[in-house]
């Protein structure tokens, strides 16, 4: 069985595993902090205010943790975080969903499913980049 080594699948599989790691560790935190903690009053009312929250989005914690010399990094890290969470979760989820469709009987449609699924993930990631740069 002297077949050529597949170089394309492992690339997407790498995005799948990396995205799985990101989605498993970062996404729950993001959902908890953004969508659950405040409405469920885990964080008390009034504790979150606009100005400090904007400061977080601009990367104030980076300066706090790494000092003033890291100030140039500050605006970029939150954007990178958003792009990684959105893109990672999309590449992970759509790869998994593609395999679910294979196992459900669509294994013949590999040539169609591959571009569609990874295309959706790529478009979603691009949208994530757009979102990340839509705030200052």
């Amino acid at each position, binding site marked *: *069985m002297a*077949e*050529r*080594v*597949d*170089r394309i*699948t*492992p*690339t997407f*599989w*790498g995005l799948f*595993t990396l995205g799985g790691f990101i989605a498993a560790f970062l996404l729950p935190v993001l959902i908890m902090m953004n969508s659950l903690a405040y409405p469920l009053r885990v964080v008390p009312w009034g504790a979150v205010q606009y100005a400090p929250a904007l400061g977080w989005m601009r990367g104030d914690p980076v300066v706090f943790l790494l000092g003033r010399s890291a100030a140039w990094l500050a605006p970029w890290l939150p954007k990178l975080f958003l792009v990684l969470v959105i893109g990672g979760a999309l590449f992970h989820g759509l790869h998994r969903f593609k*395999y*679910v469709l*294979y*196992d459900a009987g669509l*294994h013949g449609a590999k040539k169609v499913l591959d571009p569609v699924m990874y295309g959706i993930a790529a478009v979603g990631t691009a949208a994530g980049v757009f979102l990340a740069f839509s705030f200052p």
Partner: protein
Amino acid sequence: MAGAPAPKPASATPPPPPRSVPPPPPKPAVPAPKGSSKTIKLRIGRYRPERSAEPFYQEFTIPYRDDMVVLDALNYIKDRIDPTLAYRWSCRMGICGSCGADVEGSPKLTCALYLKDLRKSPVTIEPLANFAVLKDLIVDIEPFMEKLESVNPYIVRGDEKPIERGEYRQTPEELELYRQQSLCINCMLCYAACPVYGHDEKFLGPAASALALRYEMDSRDQGSEERLAAVATSHGIWQCTFVGECSVVCPKHVDPAGAIQQLKARAATRLMRSMLLPLSTR
């Protein structure tokens, strides 16, 4: 469709006996199970290409005791009721890996499954799924053997040292790294359970991948490059969708599904390294 084929005129092979007959008078070969008041009805998938192109099911009702396994039932049928029943077996103790069959639709070692634990009646016993059937419960293992061979399942050395200088030594910790994968008995239950192998017969499959990882993890081996190249093809490990059923049915807890994911990680790491550092050899 159980159309009884016309018996051959030759007297060498007796015509199939009528279905579900009580056992004939005891022969010395196998004594009737003593203290067996219970009976069990088995529905066995049969295929006899020399008589009929159509596979069919045949039902047998046999007495059994609580300590009898499915393989004992098959032996009872072959010895006492129908000597034409064909199936593989050898050790009766779950280590030879030859007695696998689909029992109630899930792949099992028939020597390790007790009749008393089967709830349905009749109990359906079929040849392992996803394989070509040669006769009755006997499947063609040739494609499987070729897959095993394709992963270089032996220690590959770049520098072979002369025998006088002794063996390649290994610590217990190094042995532990691949011990789990080395426990495979090649029973092929994982292939019968694998939906990916079910629709792509070229798929390398669970056991062969676990075997590849067994040598990958061996500290004495130096053939990683060719072995990873052999498994990371378009019909190799990347076809696995991680259903995980192979690890569920594995009687030796080899965890082939986990092994394939480990191979994927190794192959992907190697590929990334070769793209980022094209001049490095390992």
